[in-house]
């Protein structure tokens, strides 16, 4: 009983930590896409301003 609980407990701790790391990685991916979109938006604005 004690050993089973210990293994499940440790597994859940590691799953929890990995889930948090995974969530950070997903947010990092999202923010990179957003950086790219913002860069394009700013470039477009820069291009428009140059053309005017």
């Amino acid at each position, binding site marked *: *009983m*004690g*050993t089973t*609980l*210990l293994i*499940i*407990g*440790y597994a*859940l*701790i590691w799953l*929890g*930590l990995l889930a*948090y*790391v995974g969530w*950070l990685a997903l*947010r*990092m991916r999202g*923010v990179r896409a*957003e*950086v790219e979109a*913002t860069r394009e*938006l*700013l470039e477009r*604005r820069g291009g428009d301003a140059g053309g*005017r």
Partner: protein
Amino acid sequence: MQTVIHSPGERRLADIQRRAPVIGAALRWLRRYGEWALLVLTAAGMMLTIWASFVYAPTELVEGPIQRIFYAHVPLAWNSYVAFFFTLAGSALYLWRRDERWDSFARVNAEIGLVFTTLTLMSGSFWGRGFQGAWWWWDARLTTSLLMWFIYAGYLALRSYTGRTAQGARAAAVVGILGFIVTPINYLSVQWWNTLHPQPILELGAQAKLPGSMVAALMISLVSFTLLYALLLIEAYKLERTQALVARLRAEAELLEAEPE
């Protein structure tokens, strides 16, 4: 060869390197490889922790194998205290200096502290079930831990609700400062009240109440989990700052787009 210096950080580093070349070179190395070094150290530390917790440390005679969960439970709890202390410090510094970076620092610490508190509560529950026969009981340590969890979950909910506004940051800073009150109460609760939670086993200046091998295993896991906390803090802080920068740039771009031609 002429060096091109871009950021204020680079300028500061170049200045240090001019005055103290060895320190400057060390700082430059840390800037370039520090995160990788921390990642390698954390991974090695975690492997060592697993070995120390499951192989090196002896099985406790009264509690049995479930006692080994303590090598993760204690470091998680310790690092959640550290994270909540830095939430307090970041919040106070934000209110004082009104520098957005302190607000980001407080925010990511609250997030990591909440993750660690969740895992502390969960691992404690497994210990309770294995040794005391119950998943939960309403004693002072467990109740104040749960209260701490709700305070920082509330802090993050408030941040999410108010968005990236100065008003939201100010309100969260107040919660970050006042919310910390529960943390020392939580730590001292086992001494102030009768609880089923074990008493502290390591106290400064006092003799350890554990055999040397158990203390060594605990020390290894404390160091490893602290390295993990530092790594998570760096990554989460960088993410938070990038998100803040993108939000500001996007707002500026949208403002430009809305301008009449």
